[in-house]
């Protein structure tokens, strides 16, 4: 290989080196950006409902039963009892399992380590460090509106 430049002269080879370097670097950065944007989970890319309020038909949740839905992209549990409807986060604050409604005991229990909650999210027992997050839920005609 020839010397690229003599002294301080900014030679043709140095110029080409810079141009190639600039081109390759921009291409690499662009690829990283495009790939990152493609892979990053967004509302659009995961295609789930992230709206502020979700409605489900009343008939989907008979009295004394529960149903898991997605609310603001996270799992939530909707429970219907004689007292009305309740919506809570379904993610146990202990280790993140999804909680279930037990109609016999009238409480919410986590299947992993038996953390227990009431319908207001308060911890009744077990290892849960904090209450379940609750959401506003109401019956409007034939739908349950959450949020």
């Amino acid at each position, binding site marked *: *290989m020839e*010397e*690229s430049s003599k002294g301080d002269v900014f030679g043709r080879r140095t110029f080409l*080196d810079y141009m*190639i*370097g600039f081109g390759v670097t921009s291409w690499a950065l662009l690829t990283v950006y*495009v*790939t990152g*944007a*493609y*892979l*990053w989970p*967004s509302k*659009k*890319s995961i*295609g789930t409902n992230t709206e502020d309020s979700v409605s489900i038909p009343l008939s989907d949740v008979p009295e004394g039963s529960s149903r898991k839905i997605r609310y603001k992209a996270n799992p939530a549990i909707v429970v219907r009892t004689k007292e009305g409807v309740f919506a809570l986060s379904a993610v146990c604050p202990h280790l993140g399992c999804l909680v279930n409604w037990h109609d016999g005991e009238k409480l919410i229990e986590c299947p992993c380590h038996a953390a227990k909650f009431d319908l207001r999210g308060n911890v009744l027992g077990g290892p849960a460090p904090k209450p379940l997050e609750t959401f506003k839920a109401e019956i409007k005609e034939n739908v349950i509106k959450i949020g």
Partner: protein
Amino acid sequence: MADNEHKDLEKRTSFREIINLISLTGFVYGPLDDRLSIREALEKNLKKPVPDHVNWLFCFGGVTFLLFIVQAFTGVLLLMYYQPTTAEAYKSVVHITNNVPFGWLMRGIHHWAANLMSVFCLLHMLRVFFYGAYKAPRDFNWVTGVMLLCVTLGFGFTGYLLPWNQISYWATTVGTEVPSAMPVAGDLIKMLIRGGSDISQATLTRFFAIHVLILPAAIAVFLISHFLMIRRQGISEAL
């Protein structure tokens, strides 16, 4: 770093710059290089001289390989959103194209690089044929090259079904009907490819598995042998 060992390589060149840039990635490279002489190996490979008669026509094979790398990259990215079921395949492809950021781009690149890969495969073969480079001692490399062509066409055939739209469905119907024209075993082969008597979920699952698992493994084997042989035997002589 043991600079005196590489004294003859220390001239300022673009490759030198690139290798220095890689060295900047930190302490792992230094100790690693002390033991394995990675810099030297890299420089030797990047600076390996090619014979004088080599011209641009000799690039087609490399271009084909580059397109394969592009296919592997965009293919893995498409896999992150594609769902190989008859109910979801088309929907997920539409989702990739319309909703996922740059999904249209990834799908477009995968589509066009696939077409170009077949084209450059054939151009490469034409060059090898008309230069007589397929003759002994490189005849076994021609054989692996033909296998690579078959694998490439296999990629194209199986990949065509995956969007699960009208054209892919009917193209696969016609394509899998072809072997049934063979006497005796024809229908059996057709059934084996389709995983049943018609194009169904079984076919889609089969083609998906072939496209993303079996053919990539096959192409890796043939690519490695193709490259090792050309390295061992060198580029064919001038006409």
